[in-house]
């Protein structure tokens, strides 16, 4: 009897398992951008995977109009920098992707295009118009093929406290050399405040924050063959200058940097336009990062791009409709409307619009920086590269390693990575 009961149980279990796994595959709704039936079709669902914060919020605010017009419902995932990268990459290997439109940091471009993560927008009929700042599109293409569209004009700028700059005897327009930064930091520090803030946290944060200093010293992180160059005299001079500035201030995370500059606890820090939206009467504002070491130096491009781009996942099941959404989001009118919510379009007509500038004068600075920025190296290994370099730099900044030891260790590890 027991045997029979056991057999019966085993059969029930096998049947249950079979039933669980053998369900009918749910049919994906067809792309309804061109409905063929007379009955109103069920709305198509698009899934957007975006960077959390202002970058994604401006897109979310623009969606209702598109949804109503195209019989679409959009589901949005707001994610942190690392989670966004992981989720896009993890889904990319699936035949049928879970995401349609994705937000991509410029530094992931090489890795994503090399591994077929993104759809070729040129093949789908997309092209850039002349209003888009040309320099911001450089990271969006491979050869002549477009894979991404520059949506949010993130570029490093100098965040400053108006009162503390004035107390140091400077007008924002006068800050045009790194010697000026040091002078302001020293005077502010002598007055009992923090002179210059550097960004701590992940390796990418540390490296990105440092790059303008490296650029003004004529250095770079890789050579023309993408081999690391982090143990060079230029790199060491730039790093020493960066540490000297840090000693007149502190290291903080993004939120604390913005708060410290805004509440007058610190004078200067490098920032991104997406962090803070200054108005005419706010305590803080942006100016361009100085382009020279001192008055005798020649000007260089020192602003680093961190443009947030949008693209279509190559395994999206709704590519045509997603392209329509991408075009809608890149439309000058949609982008102009995003500015009130903190958006920073990569369009000249939006950034230099008279009404916009009257309300947000700092966008003229951003426009200038977007025209002459520098991209991080387009290498597949960039995420690992910044992990290694950022960790060693952090050890030097915190004094647990000497500069020679830290940079030599970084150079060795990076050479192995780029081998």
């Amino acid at each position, binding site marked *: 009897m027991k045997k029979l009961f056991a057999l019966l149980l085993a059969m029930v279990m096998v049947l249950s398992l079979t039933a669980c796994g053998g369900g009918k595959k749910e049919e994906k709704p067809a792309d309804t951008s061109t409905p063929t039936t007379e009955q109103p079709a069920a709305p198509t669902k698009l899934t957007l995977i975006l960077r959390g914060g202002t970058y994604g919020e401006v897109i979310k605010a623009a969606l209702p109009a598109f949804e109503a017009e195209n019989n679409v419902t959009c589901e949005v995932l707001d994610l942190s920098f690392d989670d966004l990268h992981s989720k896009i*990459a993890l889904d990319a290997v699936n035949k049928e992707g879970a995401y349609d439109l994705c937000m991509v940091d410029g530094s992931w471009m090489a890795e994503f295009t090399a591994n077929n993560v993104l759809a070729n927008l040129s093949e789908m009929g997309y092209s850039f118009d002349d209003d888009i700042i040309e320099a911001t599109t450089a990271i969006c293409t491979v050869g002549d093929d477009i894979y991404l569209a520059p949506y949010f004009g993130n570029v490093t700028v100098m965040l400053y406290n108006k009162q503390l700059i004035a107390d140091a005897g400077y007008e924002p327009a006068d800050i045009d050399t790194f010697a000026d930064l040091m002078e302001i930091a020293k005077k502010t520090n002598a007055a009992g405040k923090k002179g210059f803030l550097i960004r701590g946290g992940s390796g990418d944060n540390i490296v990105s924050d440092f790059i303008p200093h490296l650029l003004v010293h004529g250095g770079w992180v890789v050579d023309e063959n993408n081999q690391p160059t982090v143990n060079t005299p230029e790199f060491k001079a730039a790093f020493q200058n960066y540490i000297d500035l840090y000693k007149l201030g502190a290291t903080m995370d993004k939120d604390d940097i913005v*708060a410290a500059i805004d*509440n007058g606890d610190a004078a200067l820090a490098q920032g991104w336009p997406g962090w803070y939206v200054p108005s005419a009467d706010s305590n803080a504002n942006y100016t361009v990062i100085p382009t020279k070491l001192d008055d005798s130096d020649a000007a260089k491009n020192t602003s680093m791009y961190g443009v947030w781009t949008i693209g279509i996942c190559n395994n999206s099941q709704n590519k045509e409709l997603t392209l329509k959404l991408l075009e809608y989001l890149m439309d000058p009118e949609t982008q102009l409307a995003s500015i009130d919510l903190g958006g920073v379009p990569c369009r000249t007509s939006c950034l230099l619009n008279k009404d916009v500038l009257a309300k947000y004068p700092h966008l003229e600075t951003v426009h200038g920086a977007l025209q002459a920025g520098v991209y991080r190296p387009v290498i597949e290994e960039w995420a690992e590269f910044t992990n290694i370099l950022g960790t060693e730099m952090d050890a030097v900044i915190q004094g647990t390693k000497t500069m020679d030891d830290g940079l030599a260790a970084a150079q060795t590890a990076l050479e192995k990575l780029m081998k």
Partner: protein
Amino acid sequence: MKSTALRSNRAPHLGERTFPRLMLAPTLVVMAVLTAYPLIFTFFYSFTNYNYLKHANKASDFILFENYIDLLQDGYFRQAVLNTIKFTLLAVVLEVLLGLLVAVFINSLKRGQKVMRTLILLPYLLPAVTVALSWRMMLSPNYGIINQFLEGLGLPVYNWFMDTKTAFGTVLLIDVWQNIPFVFLLLYASLQSVSHDQYEAARIDGAGVVQQFFYVTLPNIKNGLALCTLLRIIDTFRLFEKVNILTGGGPAGTTSTITQYLYTYGIKNLNFGFGSAGAIVMTLLVLILSSFYIKRAIQ
């Protein structure tokens, strides 16, 4: 007649062996699928250079012990291992001692036990991410209430998570704060089962409060205490969310734990081969740490 008697003797014997095995089979299948397969998968990939994205359409290379050699040669991994062991020892000792203290105190209350029990459990009910973000706000060097309070008292203030002198201790404090309630809950349940007769007998024999604690309370809850310690060791060893949100392993690797290291150098970059090697090393360390209890449980 004889054969019938034999059959009737053998039938229950076979059933007694087969029936439990059949009943165990579903559990064993589920365990094999959910535990053994991932473990074998992880072990296998730890000998490869498998990158989730790069090797989606092509095979990864078998690189023998290269991942393990890289791990053990990396000073930051060794630092992460030391940090993890140091953190686990300090956190578990503090959590168990303070949790026991709270449990004994609450258990001794004549009134208000239920209210206190609920209030003390609150931190444990919060997700680790919420706890980390709340503490980050409270400890902000700009707008944090703790620095403002210290300033008000004329005491020095710190950049808690960005200073090598304070970051480790701050993360430890937050973890201890959140996990004391877990220890309290387990030990409080053990304390509830201790017979009052034993205390009464001890008192009649002239035992004081301290003697009652060491000769009645502790022997009665020692199993609960051991289980609690083991669970906390395993959980603390895997500490990740708080470190990742609050410090990202910095400054200068002072708060880096093994899981944080594996995330930064393996998982985040989709280098699952390297990450798998780290996971195997970590599993071995946890097994060594918990072997005492497991051995005892098997005996």
